[in-house]
């Protein structure tokens, strides 16, 4: 009897202990991490041929808007059409380099204008925005030649019929350039370039939250061996090595850094604004998409194929996609191991599977195509 009572008391005490322990332990929903100042790296999609079943998941920012509302007229496109792209003008902002010191003057002399042209060219190619160029001199020179060769009437008609696009937003790239040198007799320069981008409405002054490309940091160590930036001083005067005071030499380094920074911005943009298309049919392993280059689908795109019904998504497979102008064709390299995917695969094996009865199938890119950096930058 006593033993039984003891058991009951011990069980009760244990229960109280457990309960009290539960009450006092805080929920761990966050963790501490170090803030890094390492240079940024580019992130690209894995090739569709290298995907495993567990990799086939829906990436962020997928879109399920069809083309029903589109007018297919770029100058008068419906707001609800996924092919409508914001018209933007691009700027470099806040590029002043302050202070005095070794190599600062040469860094200050760096001209952003050519960088801006490069940025415009690279961003226009990914077809996420419609870009109005800032290259005023080129445009004016071309119109002068046009006037000379085609005449005033023709120029007037063309200029009046094709007006400059009105920008919806401004894309601003802020750069922060810094330099430090280390060593005394043998020293070396260490440049850092930080890029941030913002999309803003110039009239309301609202900075848009999307696309959020974060901050890109590039150091001179990313583009040059350290000993290439080495120099020798004697009696506080330059003797030999990297000509840190010569803006042409400094420009060469900064240009490479900026170019790398822009490449990383591009890859982030492609992840932040993935290409989406609707699947019109699947035949065998071949998928037919309703959009191509016009929706920013790039060659060699890795796309996740998913079924969309009643607000839920079911991944079906992963495809290697190549665009044509208005549509795209992809090859499903890996079907997802699921019932839904199996049903679709079975129908597609024996003919053409077409989504019906409220079911829609979409394809969304997982980011920058695997070979993009090799081929386009």
């Amino acid at each position: 009897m006593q033993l039984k009572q003891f058991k009951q008391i011990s069980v009760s005490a244990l229960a109280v202990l457990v309960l009290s322990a539960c009450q006092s332990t805080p929920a761990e929903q966050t963790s501490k991490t170090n803030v890094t100042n390492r240079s940024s790296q580019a992130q690209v999609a894995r090739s569709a041929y290298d995907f495993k079943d567990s990799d086939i998941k829906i990436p962020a920012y997928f879109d399920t808007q069809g083309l029903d509302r589109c007018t297919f007229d770029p100058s008068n496109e419906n707001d609800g059409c996924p092919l409508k792209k914001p018209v933007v003008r691009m700027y470099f902002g806040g590029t002043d380099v302050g202070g005095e010191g070794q190599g600062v003057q040469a860094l200050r002399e760096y001209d952003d204008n050519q960088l801006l042209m490069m940025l415009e060219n690279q961003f226009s190619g990914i077809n996420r925005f419609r870009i109005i160029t800032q290259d005023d001199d080129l445009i004016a020179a071309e119109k002068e030649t046009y006037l000379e060769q085609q005449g005033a009437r023709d120029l007037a008609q063309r200029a009046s019929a094709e007006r400059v696009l009105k920008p919806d937003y401004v894309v601003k790239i802020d750069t922060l350039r810094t330099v430090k040198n280390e060593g005394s007799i043998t020293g070396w320069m260490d440049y850092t370039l930080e890029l941030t981008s913002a999309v803003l409405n110039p009239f309301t002054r609202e900075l848009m939250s999307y696309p959020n490309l974060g901050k890109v940091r590039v150091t001179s160590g990313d583009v040059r061996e350290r000993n290439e930036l080495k120099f020798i001083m004697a009696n506080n005067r330059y003797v030999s090595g990297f000509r840190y005071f010569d803006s042409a030499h400094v420009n060469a380094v900064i240009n490479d850094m900026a170019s790398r920074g822009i490449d990383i911005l591009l890859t982030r943009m492609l992840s932040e604004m993935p290409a989406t298309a609707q699947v019109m049919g699947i035949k065998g392993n071949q998928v037919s998409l309703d959009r191509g280059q016009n929706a920013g689908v790039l060659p060699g795109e890795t796309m996740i194929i998913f079924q969309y019904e009643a607000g839920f998504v079911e991944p079906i497979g992963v495809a290697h996609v190549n665009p044509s102008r208005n549509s795209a064709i992809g090859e499903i390299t890996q079907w997802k191991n699921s019932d839904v995917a199996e049903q679709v695969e079975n129908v597609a094996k024996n003919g053409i599977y077409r989504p019906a009865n409220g079911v829609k199938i979409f394809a969304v890119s997982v980011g920058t195509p695997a070979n993009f950096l090799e081929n386009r930058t």
Partner: protein
Amino acid sequence: MIKRTQSYRLLAMGCGLVASVVVADSVGFKSHGDIYAEACAYGRGPTAVAQAQAQATSELATFLQGAALREFQRSADSFSSVDNEAQISWLESLQQGSQSGLSAQALPVVLGKPYIQGNDTCVVVTLPQGADADSVSDDGLQWDDAAAEVAVVVDGEGWPSKTGQTARQIAEMDGLKRAVSQVVGVWLQNNFTQYSNSEFAQNNDDVQESMRDVLAQQLHSRSDGFVKRWQLLDTQQLPNGGVKVTLEAVVAQQDVAQASNDLLQAIGSPRVNVDAPEPLRSFIAVWLSENGIEVSKTAPLTVTAFGDLRRRGNNASLDFNVQVADLSGNIYGKWRNDPSLLALPDSDMVMNDLMEVHLADPTQTEALQQTLRQAFMKVVAQGGMVHEIKIARKYMASSQELPGILRTIGGVRDVVVGGDSSTVLAQLRYNGSAADLASALQQALGPVLNGPLPQAQFENEFQILFL
């Protein structure tokens, strides 16, 4: 590039069409007798849809010309729900129509929802059973050039005036004025095309309406001989002692047309002086001459033009203003170019180049023409150019009655009299030449003169001196 689809059966499965009898790749009968055709065109959007629709309609028309009737008769048994006799008679009438030149566009086809197939956009068009091609008729208002007179029925309203005229008299005058205005309106509408090709590139109804009012007002003030005869049809009393009359008036339409034409010529071909620095002046003068506007240094109207270069970076654009004023400083119209049209590299010739392009732009030159025309019209609407009359006081017995006497001269408005110890200066608007005005003055001024006036001297076209 237009393609025909290869398999209709596939389409029927994919699009869920009703069961159909396929007689060709993309044309055939639906089970209830409608005829459909399907075609695809490369691309997206309205252009591709229109191309596909045109192709489908054309295939449907070709089908109607020959094969349709034959195919239906061959497979008539398949259409259990169709009245065969009615269907055959419908097909025969369509066949006859198409053979006698019925165009494919006239077929009342129904366009299906476009759908995407790869790079193509496809549509199915359907000709509903029993539908027939409609004929379109049109009618419009006609101006009979041969008729010398025209009868119109109009209303007029009037209230008693302080000058002693009765409400009825004023209502009748109002009605007659409206009768002339109505005839002017019809004339303008029917001669609109003629003017739109030359000096009067009117392109909206408002301008035409204001033109009609200006013409009617001027015609009325010049002469009341346009109404040959009229009769009262009805009279109604209005509140506050007003009267509404309904009249049938017979208007001399040839006279109205002639007078309107003269006035329009006066508005459209005035003489102007150009005040602008070179090279602007030459550009404007040449352009005005090319547009039927005579340039003269002694003209009463001045077209003032001034241009500025706006420089931005290495490039320049043109800011160019034109205004029309009379010598008294009244401004009748203003025009400004669109500087954003073009920027060119800054150079010695950039002003000339920019000017040349701006004046070669049809939209801008039309706007400039419009401004000039409206300015000239405004001059006419306000009663003509401001004229100045200077009379030495030695000829005047009294200057107090001068304004009243000047107002009695036909066509004179807005009289202002001033002057100094030696001369009387009268300013007034007159819609005619200075010589006409001078001769009218010689006759009218008698009661206020103490002797005959000397021969009028003309300083220019709007200044008359009796000194």
